[in-house]
């Protein structure tokens, strides 16, 4: 348990992706089954433990310490799970060599103290640590012990089981246990990253892990055995498995000159999320492009998957033949475990299909694009037209003609065009050549640098994360409202220049953040490129940028001439 807890502690504070991968892979190497597999399940969100409400935690801790002292502690720390893990009585410290002198009995009615009963009067009213009194030296708990105890606990004995586990754990382990039972580790590790760490352990391609994933269950002993070369690759056991998706490369300068228009089909690139709709042997699953099962959020789509096939397409909201909703609309439906009828009615989801990977037991991935496309067109005609439609092929003769259509697409949620080589098979990963994405040019805005935050690792002595704003308010009373944050897009030399600007123009500091001079005549204007805007209730400006990055430093431009919020608002509609 301590090793898992230590892993969580390090992951929370390690900002770099490579650093996280190294920590997770090392953990998998150092820890035996089944603990490492349970750690993996905890990271990917596949550990099934009944959750505990915050109120229950409060109740447990209030039985153990003075509520006033707990209140001071909670105020100071700010996070309930962390506070409880820190203040929970530490049985080992009861055995400290200190011999307390006899105490004056506390005043009547003063808190819940009873000194004669408490083994730890140091505690300011903490009562004894439960099982510790009977078992002063428990063997160290493993993650497996903890998971087993939590999974077998009933609703009524849940609190007692949790308390016993906390009594036997050290501080970090207590935090980890509380995180496990309150659901959601929130340590900045995605399921995808955990799978990449597994792949590094092999090493194998992460696509192989994703393909197997849905047939496996914790603690994944056969998966680890394969990755360590001690057993053959596990058989794909699941019905309706995920098939690793084929990805495109961005079109770079000069690429088009080497490509013949007659070799490629073109499609619109829709601004939704890539999904794989798989229905086989009565099992229906909707996967994200990384193999996460998102079926729960889209029951409307799943209900219409009455076929035996695997479809690749873009998940969008709207009514296919009439209106396609924006990405903001789609966001209403994302990242939900369940979805209300009202939500389904207001934002109906559908899949705009562009490939067919499997049909009635036949694997089509080895076929050429043109053949798959022909099968897809026939097949789509048999499906519910409110839930599945076809991504149209764009007819074009020359790249110039296509460029014209790309820069003036017929629909606002088109973000460019896709080029697919007519003779290409469906290959996992991102092979260079068969598929290209040719995105619409990004939006740009001139914004003013407002805050800068120090980076991490190689950038830890540089102010490298920038919050920027645009003007808002009536004429003469304009003020800057923050509209986004970016930390890349500039060269190392530009980073040095901005860092110097930040240090020379700091007006206030808050920990690692500095606010810099930013008024009409003093400040740094940044040209920020971004892919789109969403409405946001979380930001004062009401907008949230997608994929913002610094495209140019406008040392030449006075801040007064930076853009206004209305420029961005116009993009929302």
């Amino acid at each position: 348990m301590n090793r898992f807890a230590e892993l969580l502690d390090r992951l929370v504070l390690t900002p770099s992706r490579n650093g996280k991968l190294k920590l997770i892979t090392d953990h998998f190497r150092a820890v035996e089954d089944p603990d490492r597999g349970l750690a993996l399940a905890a990271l990917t969100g596949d550990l099934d433990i009944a959750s505990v409400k915050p109120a229950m935690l409060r109740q447990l801790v209030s039985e153990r310490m003075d509520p006033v002292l707990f209140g001071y502690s909670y105020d100071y720390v700010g996070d309930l799970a962390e506070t409880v893990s820190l203040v929970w009585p530490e049985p080992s410290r009861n055995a400290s060599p200190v011999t307390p002198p006899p105490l004056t009995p506390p005043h009547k009615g003063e808190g819940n103290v009873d000194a004669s009963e408490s083994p730890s009067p140091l505690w300011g009213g903490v009562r004894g640590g439960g099982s510790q009194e009977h078992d002063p030296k428990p063997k160290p708990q493993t993650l497996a012990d903890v998971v087993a105890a939590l999974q077998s606990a009933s609703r009524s004995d849940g609190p007692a089981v949790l308390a016993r586990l906390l009594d036997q754990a050290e501080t970090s382990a207590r935090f980890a246990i509380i995180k496990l039972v309150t659901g959601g580790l929130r340590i900045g590790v995605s399921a995808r990253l955990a799978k990449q760490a597994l792949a590094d352990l092999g090493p194998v391609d992460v696509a192989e892990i994703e393909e197997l994933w849905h047939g496996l269950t914790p603690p994944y002993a056969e998966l680890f055995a394969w990755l360590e070369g001690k057993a053959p690759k596990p058989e794909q056991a699941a019905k309706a498995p995920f098939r690793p998706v084929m990805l495109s490369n961005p079109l770079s300068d000069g690429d088009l000159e080497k490509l013949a228009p007659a070799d490629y089909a073109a499609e619109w690139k829709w601004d939704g999320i890539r999904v794989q709709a798989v229905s086989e042997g009565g099992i229906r699953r909707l996967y994200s492009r990384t193999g996460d099962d998102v079926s729960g959020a889209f029951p409307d789509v799943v209900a219409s998957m009455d076929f035996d096939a695997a479809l690749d397409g873009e998940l969008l909201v709207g009514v296919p033949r009439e209106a396609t909703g924006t990405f903001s609309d789609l966001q209403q439906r994302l990242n939900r475990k369940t979805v209300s009828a009202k939500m389904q009615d207001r934002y109906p989801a559908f899949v705009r299909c562009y490939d067919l990977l499997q049909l009635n037991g036949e694997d089509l991935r080895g076929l050429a694009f043109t053949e798959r496309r022909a099968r897809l067109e026939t097949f789509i005609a048999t499906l519910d037209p409110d839930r599945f439609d076809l991504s149209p092929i764009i007819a074009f003769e020359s790249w110039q003609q296509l460029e014209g259509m790309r820069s003036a697409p017929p629909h606002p949620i088109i973000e460019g065009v896709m080029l697919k080589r007519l003779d290409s098979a469906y290959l996992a990963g991102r092979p260079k050549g068969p598929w290209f994405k040719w995105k619409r040019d990004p939006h740009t805005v001139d914004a003013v640098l407002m805050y800068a935050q120090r980076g991490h690792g190689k950038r830890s002595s540089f102010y490298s994360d920038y919050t920027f704003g645009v003007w808002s308010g009536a004429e003469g009373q304009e003020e800057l409202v923050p509209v986004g944050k970016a930390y890349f897009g500039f060269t190392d030399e530009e980073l040095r220049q901005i860092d110097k600007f930040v240090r020379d123009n700091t007006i206030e500091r808050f920990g690692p953040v500095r606010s810099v001079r930013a008024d009409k005549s003093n400040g740094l204007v940044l040209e920020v490129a971004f892919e789109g805007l969403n409405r946001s209730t979380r930001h004062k400006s009401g907008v949230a940028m997608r994929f913002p990055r610094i495209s140019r430093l406008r040392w030449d431009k006075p801040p007064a001439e930076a853009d206004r919020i209305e420029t961005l608002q116009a993009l929302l509609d």
Partner: protein
Amino acid sequence: MRARDLLHPRPEGLYCPPGDFYIDPVRPVERALITHGHSDHARPGHAKVLATRETLDIMAIRCGPGFAGSTQAMALGDKIKVGDVTVSFHPAGHVLGSAQISVQHNGLRIVASGDYKRASDPTCAAFEVVACDVFISEATFALPVFRHPDAAHEIGKLLKSVQQFPERAHLVGAYALGKAQRVMRLLRDQGYDKPIYIHGAIARLSEYYQHQGVDLGELQPATVEDGDKSDFAGAIVIAPSSAFADRWARRFPDPLACFASGWMRIRQRAKQGGVELPLIISDHSDWIELTDTIKETGAGEVWVTHGREEALVRWCELNGISARPLHLVGYEDEGD
């Protein structure tokens, strides 16, 4: 006599009328008794200073030889009359030279702890309990959330990370007086025998510790005049944490920020400071040490100063000890 007639707060600091002196005054005074060398307790400009030999030496290193009009060194345990009161110094276990100050007059004894800790520290004398009527306790970490783990365990985390990330330089932020040297000594205790690289701000105090018989092993200045960045791959570098944000830190390859402090027990504190590897090593008492110590002194009354006074006062109330916050101004919360 009443305790408050023997010692009470004034804007200059804690004042003793019958002895006409201040303890750790924050403004220049005629006569000052200094508990230890941290800059918020030991300030220059007093006419007369009474402190341990080590504290006087440290003040001279930090503030220059003319830091006071005249000085007098006190040996630990010796008694001396200052005005009408009997004064003695007793080890506080905080940093080299740190002392509690006992003030006795007409059968009443008050002990001002200064800053103190009970955990073992190979770089200074261990805290001694002094029985007293009134105990003045610091409260830097006076909340039940603060319980410092074994420092050796924390150093183990650092050494493991150095092994795990041998291509990075581990930058350990540590207070220049006390913490930095304790971390060095703890590293040596665990068999780390490579040179430890240090920031210029730590050099003179570390040299003084070595001079006083605290073996810190080979220390090297963290400079890159002749070498290049890769020289620091896998190295441990100790610096005041303020240096991290500085251009100074750019000389290291992909530095991994560590911070040795009791505050590191709180994750959000570590996160806000951009710390990747928190090391919970403190030169102050944690909650258990504070409450144990109060009981061991047998004091019937406790005055609580700098830190989270309200929690320690509450604990005293729950345990039938009369207590009040002292409201001294001018001491830094960050002194760890």
